[in-house]
């Protein structure tokens, strides 16, 4: 088991959380949109990037730009070291046992597709079942549908209640001798729900079923320790964690990754190739075919270090305060219906306004310099479950403030005025 120390705190000095100071680190926040100061509340789609991330990427391209794992020259050695250092940073962030278990991919979507393809090819047969939940993002639905179509397996969906909470008894009932894998979100992007993942993993493991967690939303808001969780796979994207787009991570327990066939073939993922036989490289390289997104990985490493200097617990406390404050503030707005009222939730406020379509809310808020998301959030089954075509979604990050929430509430009143309500 893991030691009791916070893996993020030990090597990196902490800095006290001061939202005013923190905002200074994010150049993109300091601009005007439609003549108003930008209020960025679309962080579940992607977050803004702090200076250390921008600088790390720039430093790589200006000084160390080279390919990894293949050159004897100095630049290639520097690039390889920086790339592998980023992997070690991710390992520490997730508290994985070994760097072998950290695979760099394009993002959550690719991570899930990798497992669907590779685990699926090895372990899933006709008549088997994959169990997901009713609050998944399309990227944790469609790869499994494709796998089911190809293999004749069946996709089962554990339902949720009117608050957007997983019905654990139903989940347990759907966990059968045919279940090959459970794939579930660690934080719903449409509802903000944090499902009881420890309980889910315990129930699944009791039947010998491995569990994949979609951590796309969770990593920026919830402390993740894959050994403590004991999940088998964990997927996340760099860009929702203050890092660059185009880079993400699949964590997998080494036992699974060793047993799974490669995902893509190419350079870097082999140790020897003849036309008769190819021997695959060791982990994690077996799953990293081709030149990786080196600058992206380095940028992600810098983002994780940035988050660690503030401390995920301090960030989570700040965001919890914002969510509670905002939930209370908007509840006074006539006709406002919250979609997603789970007891365990974080960072996301999804809602509808009676008589006003979320698209119109989005356009009018943009006019006030406020960026939110309006739509189905790539979670159409969730919209259907709640009987709405779309919602307006406010999502918080570490740099948001109570003043921004106040401005949001004023702007929502304005939306109602425009509509003569």
């Amino acid at each position: 088991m893991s030691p009791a120390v916070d893996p993020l705190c030990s090597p990196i000095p902490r800095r006290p959380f001061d939202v005013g100071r923190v905002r200074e680190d994010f150049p993109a926040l300091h601009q005007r949109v439609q003549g108003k100061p930008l209020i960025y509340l679309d962080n579940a789609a992607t977050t803004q990037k702090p200076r250390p991330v921008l600088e790390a990427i720039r430093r790589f391209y200006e000084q160390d730009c080279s390919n990894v794992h293949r050159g004897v020259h100095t630049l290639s050695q520097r690039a390889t070291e920086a790339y592998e250092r980023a992997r070690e940073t991710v390992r520490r962030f997730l508290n994985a046992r070994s760097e072998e278990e950290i695979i760099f991919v394009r993002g959550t979507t690719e991570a899930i597709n990798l497992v669907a393809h590779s685990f699926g090819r090895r372990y899933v047969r006709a008549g088997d079942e994959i169990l997901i939940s009713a609050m998944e993002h399309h990227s944790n639905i469609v790869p499994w549908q494709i796998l089911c179509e190809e293999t004749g397996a069946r996709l089962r969906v554990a339902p949720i209640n009117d608050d957007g909470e997983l019905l654990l008894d139903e989940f347990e009932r759907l966990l059968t001798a045919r279940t090959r894998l459970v794939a579930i979100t660690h934080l719903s992007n449409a509802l903000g729900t944090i499902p009881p993942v420890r309980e889910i993993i315990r129930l699944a493991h009791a039947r010998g079923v491995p569990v994949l967690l979609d951590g796309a939303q969770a990593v920026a808001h919830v402390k993740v320790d894959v050994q403590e969780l004991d999940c088998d796979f964990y997927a996340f994207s760099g860009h929702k964690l203050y890092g660059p787009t185009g880079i993400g991570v699949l964590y997998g327990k080494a036992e699974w990754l060793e047993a799974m066939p490669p995902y893509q073939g190419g350079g870097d993922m082999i140790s020897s190739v003849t036309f008769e036989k190819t021997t695959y490289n060791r982990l994690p390289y077996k799953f990293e075919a081709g030149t990786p997104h080196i600058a992206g990985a380095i940028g992600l490493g810098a983002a994780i270090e940035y988050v660690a200097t503030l401390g995920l617990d301090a960030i989570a406390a700040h965001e919890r305060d914002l969510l509670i404050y905002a939930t209370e503030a908007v509840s006074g707005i006539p006709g406002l219906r919250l979609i997603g009222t789970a007891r365990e939730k974080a960072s996301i406020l999804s809602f509808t306004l009676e008589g006003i379509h979320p698209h119109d809310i989005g356009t009018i808020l943009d006019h006030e310099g406020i960026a939110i998301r309006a739509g189905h959030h790539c979670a159409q089954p969730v919209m259907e479950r709640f009987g709405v075509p779309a919602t307006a979604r406010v999502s918080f990050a570490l740099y948001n403030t109570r003043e921004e929430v106040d401005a949001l509430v004023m702007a929502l009143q304005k939306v109602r005025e425009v509509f003569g309500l």
Partner: protein
Amino acid sequence: MNDLRDLYQEVLLDHSKRPRNFGVLADADHQAVGHNPLCGDKVVVYLRMDGDRIADIRFQGQGCAVSQASASMMTESVKGKTRAEAEALFKRFHELLTGTAGPETVSELGKLAIFAGVRKYPVRVKCATLAWHTLHAALARKAETVSTE
């Protein structure tokens, strides 16, 4: 607020709240479904043709104020028109939204000219044209769902 009022004019809000010709057309002989995958908006256009003329038209669906008002006002402007006249109107409407319409086009559009305010919101152009694309599909007797993507 001024730009916003250009977009959300009284006429538009009125049509979005009380859409005209809303509902199923029982004796329709043409119909099509339109879909905007970006926002999940959906519209169904029903037509009863009298030879080449649109004898009756109704629509159903759900969506933002822009898409609902556009569908409602479209039904009013094409009822009684021939196929060719309706298509020509769609072409002018499209020119209005993409900013390529001349002044005479704008005057031909009549009430529909209020949608000029959408021009400043490029992502909303699809909302305004969804019903028209669906009408086009219904006229062409295309059975499939049209999509604005």
